[in-house]
């Protein structure tokens, strides 16, 4: 937002690019959970574009991004976040878009030292090089600390009016935002990607372990954002909704998974991901009962539905909290 505004102030025509990887935090979780219902359901990229008065192009990179997540050349950060590869990939996609649409250079909001892996002085040239953007990549917020780029040399922007921010503090950015009259701004970098989240990364790692290979589909990574995930066996895990919003969301997957709901008491919707035998289905039913209003009951009736349409009702005793080993929680 700030970087775009800095060059717009110099008369440069800017259009926004927003890449959707499937791991973006905003929107999804807000839309699903009851507790988030009161939050504004704005898409930050669209909101920023409106604040700036620029066009925004949202680009679906879900398929291409898989290779970045699965095989990051530069490795992961603290969790399964391939930040440096991600940055190079996105700037590379921006370069392709720039060339296709006849634009002259790319602007990013990177600041040296802002992020421990992808925004260091020594990694800035890596992003420029691996993306193919090279000296057509301008970082207006820290440009004064970096070598001159093409737009500066050509006089398309005045280097003197760019900035030399560095470090983790966001005070200079906040001051600049206030200078521009912005009263609100989007989530700082890092907090907008599920891959930086330890719990989410643990679920993704579990998914790969269970499958015996590192691959995923969009539905997989969506489901990792929703519900309690418990793996009682290497063969299957259960995803149990935590509120009505999640139940509604998981309902959309009922035809793809064996699913369970209590019929004698109010309770969650459970999906079984993997292959559960008779004992496994009964365990899933007891877990479903555990997280519903019948948790203290002697017996809970649980309807089990299979994707082929057949169903059966099981009468089960809910598991107690003590009967659920902590290691089941993914």
């Amino acid at each position: 937002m700030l970087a775009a505004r800095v060059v717009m102030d110099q008369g440069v025509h800017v259009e926004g690019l927003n890449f959707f990887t499937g791991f973006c935090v905003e929107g999804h979780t807000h839309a699903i959970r009851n507790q988030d219902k009161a939050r504004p359901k704005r898409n930050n990229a669209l909101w920023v574009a409106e604040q700036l008065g620029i066009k925004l192009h949202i680009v679906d990179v879900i398929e291409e991004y898989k290779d970045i997540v699965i095989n990051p050349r530069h490795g992961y950060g603290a969790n399964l976040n391939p930040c440096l590869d991600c940055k190079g990939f996105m700037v590379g996609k921006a370069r392709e878009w720039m060339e296709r649409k006849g634009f002259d250079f790319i602007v990013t909001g990177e600041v040296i030292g802002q992020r421990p892996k992808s925004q260091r002085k020594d990694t800035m040239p890596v992003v420029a090089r691996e993306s193919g953007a090279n000296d057509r990549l301008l970082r207006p917020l820290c440009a004064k600390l970096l070598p001159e780029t093409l737009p500066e040399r050509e006089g398309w922007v005045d280097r003197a009016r760019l900035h030399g921010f560095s470090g983790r503090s966001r005070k200079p950015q906040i001051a600049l935002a206030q200078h521009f009259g912005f009263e609100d701004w989007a989530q700082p970098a890092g907090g907008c990607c599920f891959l930086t989240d330890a719990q989410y990364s643990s679920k993704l790692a579990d998914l790969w372990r269970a499958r015996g290979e590192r691959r995923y589909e969009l539905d997989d990574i969506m489901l990792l954002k929703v519900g309690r995930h418990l793996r009682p066996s290497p063969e299957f895990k259960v995803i149990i909704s935590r509120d009505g919003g999640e139940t509604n969301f998981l309902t959309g997957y009922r035809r793809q998974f064996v699913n369970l709901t209590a019929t004698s008491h109010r309770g969650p919707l459970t999906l079984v991901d993997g292959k559960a035998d008779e004992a496994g289905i009964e365990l899933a039913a007891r877990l479903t009962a555990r997280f519903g209003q019948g948790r203290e009951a002697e017996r809970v009736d649980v309807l089990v539905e299979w994707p082929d349409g057949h169903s059966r009702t099981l009468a089960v005793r809910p598991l107690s909290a003590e009967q659920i080993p902590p290691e089941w929680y993914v």
Partner: protein
Amino acid sequence: MSHHQLDARRILCPLPVIRTQQRVENLAPGDTLEVRCTDHGALNDIPAWCRINGHEVIETRDDGAEVVITIRVS
């Protein structure tokens, strides 16, 4: 000018916007597109996308489980 429909149910923000964007690219000025979504966030996002790109929102409707946004392509 013709009327079109887009099923964007059971997908979450920003996919309804992306699908709308992709569909609009292949429509002619004056065409209308009715987008049906289950993510209520689309009630904010699709009109925002329309404002940014100059398309007109003719109607938004919240039917509880689903929301319907009808736009006219500029």
